[in-house]
């Protein structure tokens, strides 16, 4: 059992680890077992792999490492084999013998199992040449694939905790804060508030203080923080340690969303390991600095992501926000000075300390520095976690990295910033993404949710979806938000049901402006954004619902019906076979017909017809 008494002990241990890691006699099979890959049985793949390797007598030549999310979830389960970084996407159990024989025994790629670049139709051997990764700058997320989250040694081997050592022994707390300031690190939780301002303010207060990590990740459709915390928990611990030292705090909390049990488990283990190694607890690395870290689990309330609500929840109370006349950096958790940052914000800290503010600030735009991780999801070919320098355009993210829209459908909008954000239409695809540019469009960059929508998405329905979410999640303590949301919900529902009235759009705008001005916390002030941006950019869709009683995208059930286009239908009978209502009839090779009485508008026929013969009317 190692316990580092000083900086030198840590450094020599890291050197040893790195020497073994580079040893040519041992290869590494990195197998993603993040949330997107585990659903495809990545654990069974490991067992089969072990078995096959045993058959060839090479079980000890390769280490199989189960890691957190690699980012390219669309292609899961993902396996990368070193040396060489050979990339195998969508690995299936029956592929294992071939991979073992070709790659592990004969040192050659299994050609047919390699990734096929859809643009060039050529096979790609190495992970770094896969277009999805090639266009990214993965300075934070890229380490995930080298790390078994339950192994502190894996983290040390990539240089982990060296920034902590540097901060503790070579820098003064003030210098750390100055470094964070010069890097212009802005909060990744959505607000983009400069971290150094909060740190500085917190550091000036006396008495017990707390550093807190916001891992509540409530934005529905975003999982960057999960990917980081679950895949690389020591990175967050190290960031928090550095912050705590800079601010003079000895106690920290990580507030994790209840739906992320694996993140909790991995973090708990990481905390234990860090304590054993003398990297957490008393007299860290012999520096005299003490810091303890605890985990607290949320209860599935979105509003608890808000800073004051989160602190109330940490105290074991209902998570209701309070007005911020007094900042939490002065009076927060337990009425003590508290500094809250998002998971990804903390993850940036060790990097800045390691490489310096100047290096860091060379990435990004004038006022938004570094990289940002996005959760690219929805109607996009390459679903996954994408890390790019701030200032990368929406088009680059969605089309170059994301591969565009599947099934040859049309791009319609991208929703950014979750329930506090908005929908951005096609004409703004060349906007560089950073904190300020998306705000100008009425949306926000937010914490990094990026939901791509195609022609089959109804924008009124999307607005209703977010308002419904927020009605559920509003804590209800202030009128503008509680009642405003209810009224918006009523108006949007009647529009989607075909009972929209003249003046409804204006009413929504009026309600929205009122809520923006008078709500108590950020939930209420930003709640109208999804409605207001869809009105701004897709007013014609609202009008179609209200005046023509039509849902052009074919989502709002009372406002459309499916009809088979006689010209396009070749009578393949597929739809008739699949219709759960047996509502489709027709002779083979003859145009089919839908019995509107029996059709429940489930959309199965629309999705499966290969000849685009099912039309929305």
């Amino acid at each position: 059992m190692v316990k580092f008494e000083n900086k030198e002990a840590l450094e020599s241990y890291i050197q040893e680890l790195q020497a073994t890691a580079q040893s040519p006699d041992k290869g590494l099979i990195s197998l993603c077992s993040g949330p997107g890959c585990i659903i495809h049985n990545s654990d069974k793949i490991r067992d089969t792999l072990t078995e096959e390797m045993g058959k060839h007598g090479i079980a000890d030549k390769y280490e199989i490492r189960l890691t957190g999310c690699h980012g390219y979830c669309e292609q899961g389960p993902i396996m990368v084999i070193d040396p060489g970084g050979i990339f195998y996407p969508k690995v299936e159990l029956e592929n294992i013998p071939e991979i073992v024989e070709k790659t592990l025994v004969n040192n050659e790629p299994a050609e047919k199992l390699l990734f096929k670049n859809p643009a060039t139709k050529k096979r790609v051997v190495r992970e770094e040449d896969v277009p999805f990764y090639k266009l990214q700058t993965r300075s934070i997320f890229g380490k995930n694939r080298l790390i078994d989250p339950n192994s502190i040694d894996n983290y040390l081997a990539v240089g982990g905790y060296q920034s902590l050592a540097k901060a503790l022994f070579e820098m003064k707390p003030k210098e750390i804060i100055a470094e964070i300031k010069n890097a212009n690190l802005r909060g990744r939780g959505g607000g983009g508030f400069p971290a150094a301002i909060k740190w500085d303010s917190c550091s000036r207060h006396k008495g017990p203080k707390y550093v807190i990590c916001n891992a509540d990740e409530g934005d529905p459709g975003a999982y960057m923080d999960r990917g980081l915390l679950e895949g690389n928990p020591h990175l967050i611990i190290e960031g928090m340690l550095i912050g705590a030292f800079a601010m003079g705090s000895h106690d920290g909390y990580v507030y994790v969303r209840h739906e992320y049990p694996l993140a909790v488990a991995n973090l708990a283990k990481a905390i234990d390991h860090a304590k054993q190694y003398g990297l957490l607890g008393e007299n860290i690395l012999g520096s005299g600095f003490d810091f303890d870290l605890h985990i607290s689990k949320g209860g599935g309330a979105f509003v608890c992501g808000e800073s004051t609500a989160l602190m109330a929840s940490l105290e074991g109370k209902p998570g209701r926000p309070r007005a911020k006349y007094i900042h939490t950096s002065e009076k927060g958790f337990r009425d003590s000075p508290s500094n809250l940052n998002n998971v990804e914000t903390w993850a940036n800290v060790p990097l800045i300390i390691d490489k310096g503010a100047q290096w860091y600030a060379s990435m990004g735009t004038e006022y938004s520095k570094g990289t940002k991780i996005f959760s690219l999801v929805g109607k996009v070919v390459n679903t996954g976690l994408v890390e790019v320098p701030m200032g990368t355009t929406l088009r680059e993210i969605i089309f170059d990295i994301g591969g565009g829209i599947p099934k040859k459908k049309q791009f319609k909008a991208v929703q950014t910033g979750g329930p506090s954000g908005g929908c951005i239409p096609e004409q703004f695809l060349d906007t560089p993404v950073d904190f300020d540019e998306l705000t100008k469009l009425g949306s926000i960059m937010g914490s990094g949710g990026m939901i791509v929508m195609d022609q089959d998405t109804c924008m009124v329905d999307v607005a209703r979806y977010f308002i419904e979410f927020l009605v559920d999640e509003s804590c209800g303590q202030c009128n503008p938000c509680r009642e405003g949301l209810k009224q918006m919900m009523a108006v949007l529902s009647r529009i989607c049901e075909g009972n929209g009235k003249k003046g409804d759009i204006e009413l929504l705008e009026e309600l929205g402006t009122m809520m923006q001005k008078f709500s108590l916390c950020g939930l209420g002030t930003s709640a109208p954004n999804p409605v207001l941006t869809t009105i701004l950019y897709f007013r014609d869709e609202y009008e179609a619902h209200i005046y023509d009683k039509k849902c052009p995208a074919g989502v709002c059930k009372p406002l459309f019906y499916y009809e088979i286009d006689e010209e396009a239908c070749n009578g393949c009978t597929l739809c008739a076979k699949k219709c759960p209502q047996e509502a489709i009839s027709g002779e083979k090779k003859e145009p089919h017909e839908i019995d509107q009485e029996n059709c429940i508008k489930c959309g199965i026929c629309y999705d499966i017809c290969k000849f685009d013969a099912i039309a929305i009317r």
Partner: protein
Amino acid sequence: MAYNNDIDWEKLDDIIDEYNSDKESLLMILQDINELYNYVPPETIPVLAQKLNVPKSMIYSVATFYKTISLEPRGKYIINVCTGTACHVRGAEKIIDAVHDNLQIDTGQTTQDSLFTLETVRCLGCCAAGPVFTVNKNMHGGLDRSSALNIIDDYKKNAS
């Protein structure tokens, strides 16, 4: 207070002890109880109030504020359909409709035979596989109406 045979009072004490009877840990204590019984039996509340030295009203206030805590018994299998935005645009609503049609329960309800409870959750972090749901701790992805119903049938068969 009526003595309830179904409640393992010793286990309850263990949970409370694990958190050193700390009232700041109330939410996590409730969550552990919720996990143990699939809900928080109301009989446990006066005991908790006494041991943590907080008013009962505070416990109800916390238990009703947080969605993950249920004060009513739930089914053996809890179907949690993801209605996060990514799953929503990929047709999560159709999955809920399918479950609803098949089991005749709305979101938040439990079947008569206490086998299934239908709940929703916003994003499980498997957006690439969406629409997804979990049945207890098992994840199922790439769902459509028929695959969702097949999965539910499997659980029905398992239970009988």
